[in-house]
């Protein structure tokens, strides 16, 4: 019988009272820690913090209109790519077979990292002129992360970066066309839309929801022989 990891470690040393609960909690913490380590989540968090610092430093510089508007998108794309990169599993099939909590862990990790990225980048823009503001950060990070997660599920976890990286250029181009008409106004190119644009927010939200759902349920696709 295959059981989940949390039940595999009985609380043998616990006394009467609530020994099982304590053991389960510890096992749960350990499971989360192992999951985070296996998915390189600490490294992803480091990248996100580095992005926030980089954005903060960059915002202190003098940029022309193009640079000021396009700069945050580049950092948002890096953060989203780092989140998508955590979707790849180093264990593959055995983990899928034995991990009952895996969908929840995947979903929780995705949501937590996305929230951390949005929070860090928004905090980096506090007190400086962050083009688009927090709403723009939320929409762009969520949407581009969704693209990365969909790529992880369809191409492979290791190559999940292709989607966000490929989307970055049209996104930057959409911003560029705000000066050089004809402007690209499709909501699917949400970086080029104003922060309060409902259509763009819906598109980005849909992509993120789809990506998070697919990753939570199926996980990233494994390429044979690829490990990290």
């Amino acid at each position, binding site marked *: 019988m295959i059981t989940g990891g949390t039940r595999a470690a009985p609380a043998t040393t616990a006394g009467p009272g609530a020994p099982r609960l304590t053991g389960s909690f510890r096992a749960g913490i350990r499971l989360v820690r192992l999951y985070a380590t296996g998915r390189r989540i600490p490294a992803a968090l480091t990248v996100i913090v580095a992005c926030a610092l980089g954005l903060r430093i960059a915002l202190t510089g003098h940029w022309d209109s193009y640079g000021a508007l396009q700069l945050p998108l*580049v950092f948002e794309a*890096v953060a989203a790519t780092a989140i998508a990169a955590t979707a790849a599993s180093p264990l593959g099939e055995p983990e899928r077979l034995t991990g009952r909590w895996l969908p929840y862990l995947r979903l929780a990790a995705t949501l937590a990292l996305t929230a951390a990225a949005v929070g860090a980048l928004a905090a980096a823009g506090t007190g400086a002129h962050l083009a688009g503001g927090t709403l723009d950060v939320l929409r762009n990070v969520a949407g581009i992360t969704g693209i990365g997660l969909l790529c992880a599920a369809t191409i492979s976890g290791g190559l999940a970066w*292709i989607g966000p*990286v490929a989307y970055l250029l049209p996104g930057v181009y959409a911003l560029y066309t705000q000066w050089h008409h004809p402007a690209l106004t499709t909501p699917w190119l949400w970086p080029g839309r104003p922060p309060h644009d409902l259509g763009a927010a819906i598109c980005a939200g849909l992509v993120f929801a789809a990506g998070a759902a697919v990753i939570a349920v199926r996980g990233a696709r494994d390429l044979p022989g690829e490990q990290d």
Partner: protein
Amino acid sequence: MTATRAPARPVPATRRPGLAPARLLGLELRHNAMLWMMPVAAALFWFTAGRKTLASPPLWNLRVAVMQPNAVLAFASPVAGAAAWMGSRESRRRTTDLVNITARPRPARLLITWAATTCWALVAYLACVAVVYGVTARQATWGAPLWWPAVVAAASLAALAALGFAAGTLVPSRFTAPLAAIVAFFALGLSTQLINGSQSYWLISPVVAGPWDLGPNPEVGTFYAYLPDLPMAQVIFLAGLTAAVLGALALPTGSGIRTLRRSAAAVTTAGLLVAGTAVVLAGTGRLDAHGMIAIPALHDAASDRPLRYTPVCGHTAIPICLNPAYASYLPATEAALAPVLGQVAGLPGAPARISQAAATYQQGPGNSVGIGMAGSPIGGTHPVFHFLLPVQLAGPVLTTSEMASQLRSATGPGILASVTGDGPGASKAQHAVTTALLMAAGVVPPGAPTAGNNVPPPAAGAGGERYAAPAPGSPAYAAAQRFAALPAAVRRGWLTQHLGALRAGRIGLRQLP
């Protein structure tokens, strides 16, 4: 007795030199990530560079100047990302120890993997360039393909592949490929932020196709030869950078025998020196009078001679002649200026021909560039009026109707003013006659509000400035309305008789019919 022969010992096949690397390259080409990134790169190129390039006027210089930076940016992320992915392959597949014991030295194996990645990147890029150049060759009315910008972008791909590959090899991680891809884009896209004027070291960035903030300039390579000075410096820099990065791959301990590592160190040092020299050369560049960057150490003085061409001329009352590169603008130019030319054709002192001139460029403070026309707009025994097409001036790309409107409002008054002698210091009568002729030609609507001041009109032929008619209600305006209301034959007759006196300033407003 039967004798048996011992079977002949198998003779090892003679190995042809270069066969093994070629076979290895073939294997790498078949298993390279860039092969699968080619559609992505081509799609990005088409979305951001191809459409934009082909939407610009069919001038070789303009299209290649639009293509070069956009192609580099479109390919930067896919190439750097794929190269980093390939660089981290051995670590990702846990085969580092396995391949380290093969006969082929590690630097040679890495070099072949980089070469395969670069090959596919170049194949995708050249296919995109072939489309742009092929379409332009069919549409352009004059000139030949300019290859230097295409070479710069190709050299950029090799350098980007080397940088990405080195990153993947030295720091194999799941984050390396995406970071390499985005950092490449970031570094290239924002490298232009630091350019200040034409003497900037940052002009070495391969996304710079000419004087920064002048934008793609249609004039480059039409009246004067295209200067390859800056592209040459860029290619030298990219070649040096590529050599330095690839050489550095063989530097770590365990990469090979000592001789190999020493050679790699020499290559790295030489590459860095070459790249540094190119940066210094780019810093010595200056904006020349023809709108291009000239680098003294790379400059060929023969390039400064004007190009010889046979102008294409129209069939208006006074023929309009354009540089053949601008032949597609001739119908719009004729349509815009024909009413004005009809007013003065055949009059004494009227130009015999309207001819497009070359613009002259002067570096201003910062990144500003002054564009104008050298010399007097009209001159010669058979007077020729020289003018600039609005597309020769800096600014956004104009539609045909926008260009025609600018010609009517700026060049049209200039032509008339050259006949009436109007300009700064001219009499009110000269100003009134110019305005009247513009009214008759439909450039200044009679009775409509105008600029509303008595600012004298711009010097004839000056580019871009709009004509300021006399303020409505002023005596000059009333005289202009009166003169414009005359029948065309009467107006022409009066001008034929009195134009000399008018030009000399001997006619006052009250003497106008």
